């Protein structure tokens, strides 16, 4: 293996050697290397296979736009595909594997696709795989899936941590080249809160690859001094390894920091990636410019590279691009490279300039003007190029070729909020529009041609912002020697006499002929051409290819690039891992868990918990010997109906309503009347939406003249609170009413069953006999001989003699323990939400299974509750719509199978006996289903056409998913104790 590492120069630490592997082979590099520079130093040119044709590919760039050198890094759960080797810092033990090849990078079967290339041109998906239709699923799609695709994601869980973080600043500077550093320094010195972010691990941007002398020191040294000063300023935050990848509304920027992607085993207490949301008062984009490839035959041959990249590997990493180099350029960038190569002692054969009037060049290399490279040859490694000049062709043996098709300013961020790029003939580039708010641009992203201009621009922009914020800033300038003045290039879109495939989009294998074909076939519009050819649709989003594609489309259609325009620029600038997007929200942090104050009580009684929204609710309490959940539930139901049970209902929404107009307010938010509810009483309330449909239900107790305690369902606790706040603040701000959510203040339990009163009396100091504390009584009570104050409500969701008692949450478990102890001789049991559900179905009580947004009070048999006398309540006006009282509406009824051994499911549909299962014959559907241990039969609630008038009718319950037809009978929805005798026992 030949070493291409130069003996001196560059910013790598030659004293520190790092071992790494590529495709299983061992290599070494140095601290400060990227994976790409280390591979090049080792002479490893072939680094991947192309997407469609599986052509051998090498490293093309030295930065974020890299389309070829995509690798899988790491192993196990840390496997990360499609990592750009040009952005990956080298570390000891790094394992990199090439992609898109089989069985090996060197011998790849997929390369046969190249032979099929006449059939794989633009639009080939649409043309080739259209018929026969049956082939799609069986043949074409599996084939495409196998052949296509870049790296493979791992199936193992990612062991690493990620996090999201907010930051705020006066000025965000994106990019740390000359303009970025001068912006940050100027603003930082003026006292602004500054964040400077750069995607590379070393700050300095293009200065790190520059050989010019700035203020008397080398460019890297100049940059190091700037960074050092920035680091000393407490109001400046430096974010290296951080890609700012989106500009969002309100001047919020998204940025991805690779915190620990440069170590073999990340520290567990820190994230590997951090997603920043940066709220910036202003931002300066000093994002630089991307050098464009030139579109000649075989321009994808390993050994061909952009001139800037070559210069970066040479100057920053001390790596020679080859032993015999040529440069093909349309601008002065090629001469800067040429001069640096010759200074470093690398043999430079020729500079091939498409222009007639290149700059003076003092080196040894042959300068060929008015010339183009038509083709590069060599397959897996460049061996020669074919040049056309003066009307003739010449072949030149070289092993490396630098190319420069001109520079495209990296304006992506500036366009993320809908702005359109403007073509500039003068700069031969798309520029950001000049009416941007919240961001300014500085440096080569504006088309600035040299370091001094960039420094001045950055400083001027920052000083302007500082003075706008009332701070005075001193402008900064730099004197630069030895820099190649870079005048704009003359674009060279189309190179004549090309023999081989001339690639435009390297990553998606789109070549010049594809674009021509797209234009010919009527897909020349830039957005259509993108979809038709897939140009710009790969993970690099066309950073290198889009402008060349636009130039070629313009040429093919006889337009200017300005008329062709660009496709839409969208976040993210570079791909973002799902890990970073989810941040810490995974595993137990995926969403918060709400725990009832009686959680531990339930747990010690063996509760099985079920997620209900964010709550953990006790579902049932299995006892020894019980193997199926229903055994436990049946036992709990029967025990409550014959003895007593205790159920945690703390998660019901609880709202305290106070204020002078509390009564008026409660009366307006419920459909039934509350104005006459006496103090000390509870009432069932029905809340409607403005369209007349039921919104929620619950009980509300009047605890004082102007003090109400409202309960809501668990599911609607938060929405009802918001709704009440809306009514109080937006609809009726003139009412004096205050709302406080007290859901978390109270541990609330239901004690139900014939023995409930006896048990409860054991802790309540006041008399709670039928006479003293009758049905719907609701009062503050003294407990445990005055040790505690709670609230007691005589309400029932089971049809039994029942109470709900609320005690301060911290005492909940103690009170529950006391009740269980007192209840033990009476056979009390803990019961869960499943038993609660069974008992409410037995009693025909509704929940949100029935209140599904389509039912009115009349639909569920509560029409008579609705007040006729109130002048106003939420839902009153729309409830009176004629259609809402039509007899054909679905209304609540009970359903039981004729044979209790038969079952059906919630959601099953009702058909008239003998009717076919068609939409027209649909008679309604089952909303709630339960096995009733009391009735020893399945029972169900259903919404049925004209249900209340059809009790006794035989129907069929149809489960379309299982195609089951169950004979059943419509009945009263109150299955148990319709006379409510037990309630008042």
């Amino acid at each position: 293996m030949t070493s291409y590492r130069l003996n001196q120069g560059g910013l790598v630490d030659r004293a520190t050697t790092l071992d790494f592997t590529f495709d299983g082979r061992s290599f070494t590099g140095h601290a400060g290397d990227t994976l790409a520079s280390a591979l090049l130093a080792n002479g490893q040119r072939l680094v991947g296979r192309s997407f469609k044709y599986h052509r051998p590919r090498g490293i093309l760039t030295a930065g974020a736009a890299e389309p070829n050198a995509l690798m899988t890094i790491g192993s196990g759960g840390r496997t990360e595909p499609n990592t750009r080797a040009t952005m990956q810092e080298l570390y000891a033990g790094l394992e990199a594997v090439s992609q898109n090849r089989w069985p090996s990078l060197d011998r790849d079967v997929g390369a046969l696709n190249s032979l099929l290339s006449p059939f794989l041109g633009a639009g080939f998906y649409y043309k080739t795989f259209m018929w026969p239709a049956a082939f799609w699923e069986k043949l074409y799609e599996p084939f495409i899936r196998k052949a296509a695709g870049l790296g493979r994601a791992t199936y193992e869980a990612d062991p690493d941590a990620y996090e999201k973080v907010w930051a705020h600043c006066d000025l965000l500077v994106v990019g740390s080249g000359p303009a970025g550093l001068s912006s940050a320094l100027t603003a930082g010195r003026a006292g602004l809160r500054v964040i400077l972010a750069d995607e590379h691990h070393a700050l300095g941007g293009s200065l790190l690859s520059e050989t010019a002398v700035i203020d008397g020191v080398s460019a890297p040294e100049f940059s190091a001094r700037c960074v050092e000063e920035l680091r000393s300023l407490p109001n400046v935050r430096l974010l290296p390894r951080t890609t700012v990848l989106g500009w969002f509304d309100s001047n919020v920027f998204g940025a991805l920091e690779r915190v620990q992607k440069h170590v073999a085993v990340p520290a567990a207490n820190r994230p590997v990636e951090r997603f920043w949301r940066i709220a910036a008062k202003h931002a300066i984009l000093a994002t630089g410019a991307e050098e464009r490839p030139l579109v000649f035959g075989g321009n994808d041959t390993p050994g061909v590279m952009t001139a800037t990249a070559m210069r970066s590997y040479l100057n920053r990493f001390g790596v020679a691009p080859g032993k015999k180099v040529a440069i093909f350029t349309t601008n002065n960038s090629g001469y800067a490279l040429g001069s640096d190569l010759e200074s470093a002692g690398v043999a430079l054969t020729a500079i091939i300039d498409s222009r007639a009037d290149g700059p003076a060049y003092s080196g040894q290399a042959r300068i060929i003007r008015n010339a183009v490279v038509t083709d590069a040859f060599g397959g897996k490694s460049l061996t020669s190029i074919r040049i056309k000049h003066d009307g003739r062709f010449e072949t030149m043996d070289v092993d490396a070729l630098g190319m420069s098709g001109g520079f495209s300013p990296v304006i992506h961020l500036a366009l993320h909020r809908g702005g359109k790029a403007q073509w500039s003939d003068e700069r031969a580039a798309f520029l950001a529009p000049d009416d941007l708010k919240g961001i300014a641009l500085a440096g080569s992203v504006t088309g600035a041609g040299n370091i001094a201009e960039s420094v001045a621009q950055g400083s001027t922009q920052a000083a302007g912002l500082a003075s706008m914020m009332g701070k005075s800033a001193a402008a900064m300038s730099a004197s630069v020697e030895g820099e190649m003045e870079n005048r704009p290039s003359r674009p060279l879109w189309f190179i004549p006499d090309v023999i081989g495939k001339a690639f435009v989009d390297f990553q998606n294998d789109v070549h010049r002929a594809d674009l021509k074909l797209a234009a010919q076939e009527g897909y020349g519009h830039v957005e259509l051409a993108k979809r038709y050819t897939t140009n710009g649709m790969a993970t690099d989003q066309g950073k290198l290819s889009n402008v060349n594609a636009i130039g070629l489309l313009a040429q093919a259609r006889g337009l200017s690039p300005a008329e062709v325009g660009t496709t839409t620029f969208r976040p993210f600038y570079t791909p973002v891992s799902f890990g970073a997007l989810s941040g810490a929200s995974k595993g137990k942090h995926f969403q918060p868990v709400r725990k009832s104050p009686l959680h531990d009580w339930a747990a010690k009684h063996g509760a099985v918990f079920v997620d209900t929204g964010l709550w953990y609710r006790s579902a049932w309490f299995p006892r020894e010997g019980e193997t199926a959940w229903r055994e436990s539930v049946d036992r709990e139901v029967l025990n409550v109906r014959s003895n007593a049970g205790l159920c945690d209902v703390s998660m019901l929404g609880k709202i305290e309503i106070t204020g002078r107009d509390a009564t008026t307010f409660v009366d307006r938010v419920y459909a039934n009347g509350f104005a006459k509810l006496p103090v000390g009483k509870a009432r069932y309330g029905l809340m409607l939406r403005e369209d007349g449909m039921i919104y929620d239900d619950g009980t509300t107790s009047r605890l004082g003249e102007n003090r109400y305690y409202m309960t809501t369902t668990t599911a609607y606790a938060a929405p009802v609170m918001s709704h009440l706040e809306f009514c109080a603040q937006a609809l009726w701000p003139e009412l004096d009413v205050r709302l406080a959510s007290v859901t978390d203040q109270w541990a609330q339990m239901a004690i139900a069953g014939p023995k409930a009163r006896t048990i409860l009396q054991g802790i309540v100091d006041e008399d709670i006999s039928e006479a003293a504390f009758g049905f719907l009584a609701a009062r503050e009570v003294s407990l445990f001989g005055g040790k505690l104050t709670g609230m007691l409500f005589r309400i029932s969701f089971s049809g039994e003699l029942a109470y709900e008692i609320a005690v301060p949450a911290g005492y909940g478990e103690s009170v529950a323990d006391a009740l269980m102890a007192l209840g033990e001789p009476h056979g009390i049991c803990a019961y869960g939400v499943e038993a609660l559900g069974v008992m409410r179905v037995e009693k025909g009580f509704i929940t949100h299974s029935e209140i599904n947004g389509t039912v009115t009070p009349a639909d569920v048999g509560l029409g008579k509750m609705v007040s006729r006398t109130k002048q106003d309540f939420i839902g009153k006006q729309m409830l009176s719509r004629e259609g809402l009282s039509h007899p054909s509406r679905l209304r609540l009824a009970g359903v039981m199978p004729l044979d209790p051994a038969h079952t059906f499911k919630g959601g099953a549909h009702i058909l008239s006996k003998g009717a076919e299962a068609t939409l027209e014959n649909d008679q309604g559907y089952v909303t709630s289903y339960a096995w009733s241990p009391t009735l020893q039969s399945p029972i169900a609630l259903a919404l049925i056409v004209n249900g209340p008038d059809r009790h006794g009718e035989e129907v069929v319950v149809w489960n379309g998913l299982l195609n089951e037809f169950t004979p059943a009978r419509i009945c009263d929805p109150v299955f148990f104790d319709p006379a409510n005798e037990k309630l008042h026992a």
Partner: protein
Amino acid sequence: MPDLIHRPALTKEPLVGERIRLAPMPEGTLLEVRGPQAELPALEAAADAAGLVIRTNGPDQWFAISGQPMLRLDLPDIFSVTDQSHGRVRIAMEGAAVDDVLAKGMAVDLFDFKIGAATTALIGHITTHIARLDRDRFELTVLRSFAESLWHDLETMSAEFLDR
């Protein structure tokens, strides 16, 4: 009569690092007070007399707080007082890294958040009331049912600063 035991929502040992310390606070008295902003001086005087500290919680709403349980606050009818002593849990958070830790969950710009300021904001997915008691000291108040989840989140957010 059985013994009445008060069980705190958070039974966690403090988390300690050189630059961050987290600890559950005793569940004392926390009253939610609503009334007209103009009457704040009256509220503050009454709270002071009762040994309670007033913290703002949005327009026309405050918390009256003490580490002592069962404190009462007698106010004219123009105010509504709701006992939330069991419904809210307080967590103390302090150290030089406290701003950096909170920034991992919260979008409030703490640079402008002065000593004595208080507000309600999202920390991750959990609505939390935060009060800055000193440059490096905050108190977080959260719904009881969310307390454990918030604690877990704060622990994750603090991880890089903890002694482990």
